[in-house]
């Protein structure tokens, strides 16, 4: 297995474990403002994705990411399936030449674009976009302008995502099921932003370990 592919497989497994551990917490967040299935949706999707990538024989990074995405897409349904899974599939094309700081930035940007495109949500709508946008912006600036080492750039991106999660609390949601609550959505942390942060934390942990 090539180095990059192995990192992706390990990352998907780490995400699956983390999400499983946070399953009830994510469901609780979703029951306050949505339909109480985000924990279950994510846990099922990522567990299957981990199995699927583990079954691949020596995959390159692109194949591993695409397989994980396809599995999430076809397991999850709801809003999360296309957003998490479909965007992974689409963004995986940026990894065709392998994982470099440049392709990682392109991947992150494409992923965010696809999420925004599919979900028609901009920053401040109280969704996962609020976690993703500052993270992707920070990562891109760290690599391209500040020329930081990738691990340091990723660490800063995770901190930015964390700020994004906190940002979802005080604003009124205008996308996702939480939007039906109107002003009652103010004061609630978005489940999708939260799980997005967990995914990034695991990616960082695996990248740091390799």
């Amino acid at each position, binding site marked *: 297995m090539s180095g990059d592919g192995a990192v992706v497989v390990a990352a998907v497994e780490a995400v699956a474990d983390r999400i499983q551990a946070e399953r009830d917490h994510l469901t609780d967040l979703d029951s306050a403002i949505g*339909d*109480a*299935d985000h924990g279950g*949706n994510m846990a099922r999707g990522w567990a299957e994705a981990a199995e699927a990538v583990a079954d691949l024989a020596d995959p390159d990074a692109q194949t591993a990411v695409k397989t994980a995405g396809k599995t999430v*897409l*076809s*397991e*999850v*349904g*709801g*809003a*999360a*399936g*296309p*957003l998490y899974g*479909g965007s992974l599939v689409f963004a995986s094309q940026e990894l065709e030449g392998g994982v470099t700081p440049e392709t990682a930035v392109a991947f992150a940007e494409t992923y965010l674009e696809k999420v925004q495109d*599919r*979900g*028609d949500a901009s920053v401040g709508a109280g969704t996962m976009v609020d976690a993703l946008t500052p993270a992707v912006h920070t990562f891109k600036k760290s690599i391209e302008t500040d020329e930081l080492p990738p691990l340091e750039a990723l660490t800063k991106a995770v901190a930015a995502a964390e700020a994004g999660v906190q940002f979802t609390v005080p604003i*009124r*949601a*205008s*996308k*996702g*099921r939480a*939007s*039906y*609550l*109107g002003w009652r959505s103010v004061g609630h942390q978005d489940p999708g932003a939260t799980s997005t942060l967990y995914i990034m934390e695991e990616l960082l942990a695996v990248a740091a370990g390799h």
Partner: protein
Amino acid sequence: MKKLINESDDVVDEMLDGMTAAYPDLRRLPDTQVLVRDDAPVAGKVGVVSGGGSGHEPTHGGYIGDGMLDGAAAGDVFSSPTADEFEALLDATDSGEGVLAVIKNYEGDVMNFETAIEMVEMEGTDVATVVVNDDVAVEDSLYTSGRRGVCGTILVHKAAGAKAAAGADLDEAQRVAQKVVDNTATMGMALTSCVTPEKGEATFDLPDDEIELGIGIHGEPGTERTDVMSADEITEELTEGVLDDLDLDEGQEVVTIVNGMGGTPLMELFVVNRKLQELIGDHGLETWDAWVGDYMTSLDMAGASITVCAVDDELKELLDAPADTPGLTVQ
């Protein structure tokens, strides 16, 4: 909470098998939760399909048949089907004339359908879509992802299905579907919460002396919680909400629906219909047809929704055209 089920994980699978066992004209695509007409794709006809979470029976599979849907994808309870299920549905119902996808305005449904459409379009299938958003309880503003699609969807299936059955092309089928959407509004209320098979207890708490107005069909909380009211008062709240939104001219002909949410007996729906027709008359409108029954349910929730659709000659002809499906028969 007791239910007539085995394992909660199996309920959709077993329901679908129970449907094909009841209706030989339905066929389940292997390894999917998709039902189609046994003779799909129907040669020379535009396909009309729909789908969404389960728990709204007879929606969606119950409207498959002559004059309505060619197929429908069933998600898990209250959960959109995945993109590949929608893909299988579109593949199985395209005879070469293209497929009209009737989508209720929930992000899961919209996004998974869109993902599937991108995929089948690459293989050469023409797909047109219509997004149903008849629920006036949700204010349509900067702050929301648009209004929800609820019971008015049935009228879209009926009109578009009739148009396709009459030999219309994809654009024409889409046009009449959109016409229904543009002229339909719905508002619902709950006496009790629904209970999902998985959770086994009420999705939201509703004390014995309160009701919830402006509810959706997935156990989402409503827009307003009030003290218990009489059937007449409730009917007035819902009807006024719907008519306010539609803002119809005097003398306009309408189709009305009193829709049960699953746990409310027909007797009560007729009590509501009595008051609804009185109000329709008070507004100077004319009921051309009145439907009363369980069309778009929310599991075992007690409650009802009221739908009004303004009809012209074209829609009347389409709504009156023959249909032969498990959930709706017109002859």
